[in-house]
């Protein structure tokens, strides 16, 4: 598949800028997203290729402007919704509830 993820040989992406003494995770949400993705993989509703495909289907512009664990998050949500384990409405409602609680 040739898409936004197929980056070999692409020009103009700038320097690599490796971070010295980089931590394994940079933000708490990255830890949770990583673990949720692995744990949901164990449910057996999809395989590794389907997980990759869910990330690779992102719009190329959005793919390039989001971070690695955001790709995981978008892929996970896509698979959860497509397999019917969670609906878009449930996610939107829960995000609203958590956002409101955090504001209290």
């Amino acid at each position, binding site marked *: 598949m040739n898409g936004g*993820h*197929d*980056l*070999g*040989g*692409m*020009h103009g*992406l*700038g*320097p*690599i*800028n*490796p*971070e010295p003494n*980089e931590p*394994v*995770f*940079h*933000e708490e*949400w990255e*830890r*949770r*997203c*990583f*673990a*949720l993705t*692995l*744990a*949901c993989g164990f*449910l057996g509703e999809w395989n*590794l*290729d389907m997980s*990759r495909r869910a*990330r*690779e289907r992102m719009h190329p512009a959005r793919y*390039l402007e989001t971070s*690695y664990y*955001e790709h995981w*998050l978008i892929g*996970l*949500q896509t698979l*959860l919704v497509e397999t019917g*384990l*969670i609906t878009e409405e*449930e*996610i939107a409602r*829960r*995000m609203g509830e*958590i*956002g409101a609680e*955090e*504001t209290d």
Partner: protein
Amino acid sequence: MSDHHEHAHLPDTVLRVKALESLLVEKGLVDPAALDELIDTYEHKVGPRNGARVVARAWSNADYKTRLLQNPSAALAELGFTGRQGEDMVVLENTEKVHHMVVCTLCSCYPWPVLGLPPVWYKSAPYRARAVMDPRGVLKEFGVSLSDEIEIRIWDSTAEVRYLVLPMRPEGTEGMDEESLANLVTRNSMIGTGLPLSPHQIAHQK
């Protein structure tokens, strides 16, 4: 800025992760304790020190090195390094003539059992784009300059096959034991974007 204000602006990404976790736990699909365990494993237990032990063993023991190159997965299992994202391994030996460097142009495939989770730069668009096009330029960004006589081979990982570079044993390490040798082996030297430290460099770090 008050706490109220900051919380009112929790980024969408953070909220979304919290919402998914909350829903998945509520539905009994994931166990929060299992999530903590997975995080602990990959943050604290699995990492490049595993790969360094493998390299040090190969440097010290010719029979182990032969097994590692011929049947990598079994040789890694001898040291207990098996599991997810490392099922089918290939070990690439650097020599005076050939330097190997590993990338995953499509995503982030990486040998988790021996190196842990990949660093951000390995997953970044610039590395994935340029490793296959301008390896010497990439190496320069990592502070590595190789003679033009040395051939550079780039290996593009896939979901099925993961690579570990076996760097050359540095000079001046005769008589060092495995543990001391392992301290010379950097993560990047096992990806091919770096070289092992010399005993001299280690002495300077201390």
